[in-house]
């Protein structure tokens, strides 16, 4: 029985070092061949690359969703860098929505991240009443101290319009890397990613309702994920690490073990 190489790839990426996602993905793509490349690149989340829009001078984020060939589309200018003769662009209606979404998430980003970069990209799908988008946020903490960290949010949303309401499907991934290197502690690296999903049915009055709806479901999702990340990073992994070595002599455990083996 053959297992789908796509599933094997995803399983593998769940186990390899989260610090090496980009390079491991490259190795994987070379291994499985060009047929699977597109599927893998869109399914495996990597830390986002940032670039400066040559037209507006503003920073934006690059990912597979705003890429066409080797060029990337800036959400601010709507142009490709390097320029492309006939690169993919959202429809006029979607571009209007995209501009509003980028402005709204720019505010969101500043209020929650106090810095960093955000970008929103929308695209039409084959289905008439369905459009999709990705909302990206990246914050890097790279000050002079021994602590480095980075947070990447990748929210993919699919929107199905049904008259006065819309169905929103959200898949959110946060990539969180924390690196600590102080003399006393040596190196401590806590890195990883987490993915969650949610679905909502919400009313729409006009196109702009989408911005508010998507904004709210992402805000709620990030609230939940921030809490979960905190629990897993600073609770779970710490508990496991403390489970590997017990600070006090484990006399009790030994006694229990000896009693049990006396059957």
């Amino acid at each position, binding site marked *: 029985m053959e297992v789908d*190489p796509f599933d*094997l*790839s995803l*399983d*593998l990426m*769940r*186990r*390899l*070092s*989260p610090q*090496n996602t980009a390079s491991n993905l490259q*190795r*994987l793509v*070379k291994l499985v061949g060009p047929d699977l490349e597109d599927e893998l690149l869109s399914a495996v989340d990597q830390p986002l690359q940032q670039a400066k829009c040559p037209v507006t001078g503003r920073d934006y984020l690059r990912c597979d969703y705003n890429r066409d060939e080797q060029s990337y589309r800036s959400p601010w200018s709507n142009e490709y860098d390097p320029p492309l003769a006939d690169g993919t662009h959202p429809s006029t209606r979607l571009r209007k929505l995209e501009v509003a979404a980028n*402005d*709204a998430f*720019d505010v969101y980003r500043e*209020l*929650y*991240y*106090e810095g960093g970069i955000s970008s929103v990209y929308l695209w039409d799908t084959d289905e008439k009443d369905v459009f999709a988008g990705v909302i990206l946020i990246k914050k890097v*903490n790279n000050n002079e101290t021994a*602590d480095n*960290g*980075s*947070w990447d949010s990748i929210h993919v949303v699919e929107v199905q319009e049904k008259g006065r309401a819309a169905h929103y499907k959200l898949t959110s991934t946060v990539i*969180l890397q924390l690196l*600590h290197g102080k003399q*006393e*502690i*040596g190196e*401590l*690296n*806590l890195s*990883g*990613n*987490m*993915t969650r999903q949610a679905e909502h049915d919400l009313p729409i009055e006009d196109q702009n309702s989408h911005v*508010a709806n998507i904004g709210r479901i992402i*805000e709620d999702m*990030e*609230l939940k994920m*921030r809490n979960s990340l*905190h629990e*897993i*990073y*600073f609770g*779970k*992994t710490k508990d*496991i*690490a403390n*489970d*590997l*070595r*017990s*600070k006090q*002599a*484990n006399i009790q455990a*030994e006694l229990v*073990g000896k009693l049990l083996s006396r059957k």
Partner: protein
Amino acid sequence: MSDTAETLATIAHFVSEAPPGELSEVLNDIRGLVNNDELLQEGIVKPFAEYNINSLLVIRSESGEKLIVSKHNQIEDGRFVDFKSKQSFVVDHVAQALSDPQPFEVNAEVADHRAALESSVEAYTQDHYPNGDSAVFAGEGRSLVIVIVNNKFNPSNFWNGRWISEWTVALDSDLVSGELKAHVHYYEDGNVQLKTVKHINTQLSSISSDPIEFASAVVKTILKAETEYQLAVNVTYGQISDTTFKSLRRALPITRTKLDWNSVANYKIGAELSNK
């Protein structure tokens, strides 16, 4: 498709990154992706050897012998020494099996100290690493190497972890140097990994030529260093949580309320944020 050399390099790299307790799952994935069992069998021999050595693989034979695979007790390619039973074995790294036991003579100069230290380390390991394993090897000259490994596998709850201690001491020296490593993998709906490395250089509080006193002094020093380190790791967790994590993303905006998405278009960023 990549060429053979590239494929072999990729296989080696993926194997080296396998988290504790997940080597066979990683191998299973690689096997399906490479889709060439002959090449795979050839390609995993060296990577598996390196992996086993780096992770202090413990192999138990059917007849009850136990061997810890490490770079410190390898005498020739594929052959490792169990000092306690005074034997060496050939190790099949892929099958994780022992074969061809041969008697091994421990250097008489260090034999008594080694044995005493091993006893003390075993007791220390039982106290602090339930289900852990330890060994003491004779190193170069009059040095002794202590290894401790503790694995905790819990795949049904999506986590695995491993602790490794390696310490080097020497007869008639008070210098103690060590390396402590921890690797934790949590993978429910994600992939989160903790990796720590700590190098330590310290000294024995007293030197003695008596094997038992020597052993006791070494374990006392190791206990102190490892306990301090474990406490420091916990403190660091708190620091990272309170500073680095918080500075990446606030729990709530400075207004202490969620965003009013209906009037987000009216937010004047300058005005709002000048109140910080």
